[in-house]
């Protein structure tokens, strides 16, 4: 088993190079991981030594076959965990990504397989899981000024109780009264205008109204 740092490096290289064909420079890798350039160089060197990476040029590396298979497994774990955390548990997207980064190294392949098939099996209502597979539902932020939409789900429903009390709950029809370029929105619900910050508006999933 590789230590988690190595897995993080391989995952980062995979993310930078797309599907592993091209090469990634040391600088890009250091920036993606937020590490010091020197430390990056040392770790990369030992990864090359172990045969996970190969040098493309002096300053750039690409994944070997062995490296690619490890990186794809870790990346898949990350995706599945992040999807589970945000869509099923309603964890905030940023927090979920961070958490997935820690969990991905320790979780077994079997658990990930089971988690993935569990999520496929769960029959979600429109809007909840849709985000993971396709993009047919949108958040309040994707709407235009003047749109009338129906609230489908609210992510992290326990965080914003006031939305419920002001009448923004699944099934309610709301009108977008104002949307500023900086993504703050005003919605009209039950005859009242409610101003909502972008990060909250993003957690309100909506369906277009028939």
């Amino acid at each position, binding site marked *: 088993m590789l230590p988690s740092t190595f897995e993080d490096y391989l995952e980062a290289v995979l993310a930078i190079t797309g599907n592993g064909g091209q090469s990634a420079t040391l600088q890009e890798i250091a920036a993606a991981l937020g590490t010091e350039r020197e430390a990056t160089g040392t770790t990369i060197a030992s990864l090359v030594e172990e045969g996970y990476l190969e040098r493309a040029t002096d300053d750039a590396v690409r994944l070997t076959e062995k490296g690619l298979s490890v990186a794809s497994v870790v990346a898949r774990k990350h995706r599945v965990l992040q999807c589970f955390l945000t869509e099923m548990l309603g964890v905030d997207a940023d927090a979920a990504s961070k958490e997935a980064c820690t969990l991905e190294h320790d979780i077994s392949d079997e658990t990930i397989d089971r988690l993935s098939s569990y999520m496929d099996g769960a029959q979600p209502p429109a809007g*909840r899981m849709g985000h993971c597979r396709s993009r047919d539902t949108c958040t309040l932020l994707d709407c235009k000024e003047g749109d009338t939409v129906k609230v489908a789900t*609210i992510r992290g*429903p326990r965080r914003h109780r006031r939305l419920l009390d002001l009448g923004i*709950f699944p099934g309610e029809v709301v009108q977008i009264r104002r949307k500023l370029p900086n993504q703050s929105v005003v919605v009209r619900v039950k*005859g009242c205008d409610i101003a909502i910050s972008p990060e909250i508006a993003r957690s309100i999933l909506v369906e277009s109204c028939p």
Partner: protein
Amino acid sequence: MRFALIGNPSVGKSLIFNQLTGLGVEVSNYPGTTVELQRGNTCFQREMVELVDLPGVYSLEGGSDEEDLVRRFLEQQDTDAVIVVVNVTRLERNLYLLLQVAEYGLPMVVVLNMADEAAKLGIEIDPAPIRDLLGVDVIQTAASQGKNIDRIIPAALAATRPSKVEIPYDHHVEAAVRSLGKMFLVDRKESVRALQGFGDNPELLEAARTIADEIESRHRMTASQIIAANRHNFAHRIADLTLKEELLLRQTDPDSILTRLFPGMPILLGILVGMLLLVFVVGSFLEEIIVEIFNVFAIQPFLALGLPPLAEELGRSILLALQAGLGIAFPYVLLFYIIISVLEDSGYMTRAAFLADNAMHRLGMHGGAVIPLTLAFGCNVPAIMGIRLLHSRRERIIASFLVTMVPCSARTVIIAGIVGSFVGLGAAFSVYGIVFVLILITGLVLSRVTPGERFGMIMEMVPLRRPDPKLVMKKAWARLSEFLFIAMPLLLVGSVVLGLLEFFGIMAIFEGIVEPYTLALLGLPGYSATALVFGILRKEMAFETLAILAGTADLGAVLSSLQLYIFAVVTVLFVPCLATITVLLREVGSRITLAITVYTVALGLLIGGLMYRILS
């Protein structure tokens, strides 16, 4: 007999309370004005009736401080009847709270307020459905005109039965309510609350959580969401029966200009800058007149009396304090309070909050923080109390730092009186510039380093109203009289103490000790340090003390422009006043208060010292 007023924010509870009790509770047009219970008495047919004004809330089951306060009050059943005040122009949302209150099983009366505004919008109201469905008395009122207010108390006295309404919940919730009721012998209201995770019986909560999880997995909605949706839908049905809306011509919607980036943003900045400019120009003009009148008619005749030296020193101190106090109070403080009261009552502040949301996020808060920051221009004390509308401790800490740095009306006096009069108007505004830049930097840094959770803004845009001039003046006057009765005695005592210290030569000793330091650090004479210290009591005293110590109101004659400028900057930044420190202690605790105090002292001395090095 005791009755409680309850309702959504900005429905006119406080106005009704004032009219019934004759007391002066503050009325403002944004959520969160009343944060504590207000009690008052009124007489009806020789019987004493106590009225309690509860803070405005949207629900009894949210987690905010006001909501907790109202819920605890209702749970104690310490009232003979509740008077639910409802804004008929927003009936449906208001009924949601009404239904929750009805579940508490207290005798109640429903007041449909703002009937006049509803009529203007072409809404016709039939109170019969509410009366029949809930089984309670319904009164239509127009509090701003005082219409039908006199019928509230008799109706509350006659109310003896609780509402008979039962909100029809989803059948899974109903089943859960029944089984919880059987298992734990609790009533409907308690079961419903337990399903949402509220209550204090751990066994009941445990059982309710199991059932709520079950409901959630079936419905893909949390139990709270289902319950809220059921209540909203029931409220919607009642509202439909009650209102007969006739479509009138839509009036022009001012929000179409106020809440767009353009021209909304320029309007917001214009209002803030205009407020400062107006207070500055009009304030210093009025102040000059008052000071001149005092000089000619009081101080000169008094000095001409030729009294013994001690008596003359005392008398002069008192007269100087009066002159400075009045010269400050009327022009600056009153003007600020009038403008801020107009802004508060108009409902514009919630628009400002919306526009500034993005900018405030950068400073680590949300748009609502604009309200306390603007209030702080009048006085930091109510502004610090206003930071409660921010949810998390992180936001409150950042806001408390920034609010204490905003130049309040007393500090405006220093800027206008010292820099504006003796250096120039441009220089005076540059002091504001420096302070605002420092506030921005402080906010940017704090938002990076303060730990804690971020919450966004969910704020109702209250209806815009034309502020009632009478109410505005009353509020401004109430705030000014606080200034006159609390600040003036302090000014007088401080002035006399200073005069005596000066007379007996103690002052000279103190100044002799500190002078080397102030001269080296800031280039200021020793007596300015005394003025700074007195500024901690009340900010405007720094100005007044400086004038007394310098022995003349014409500061330009004894100090250079640079010295005056540096003195003003240091005083404006230096330590919040005593009153502010007291509320800070209550709102954010001693550690943060200490941090703010140390930070502002250090900042004041640092900036003053830097300016002395660079400019001299």
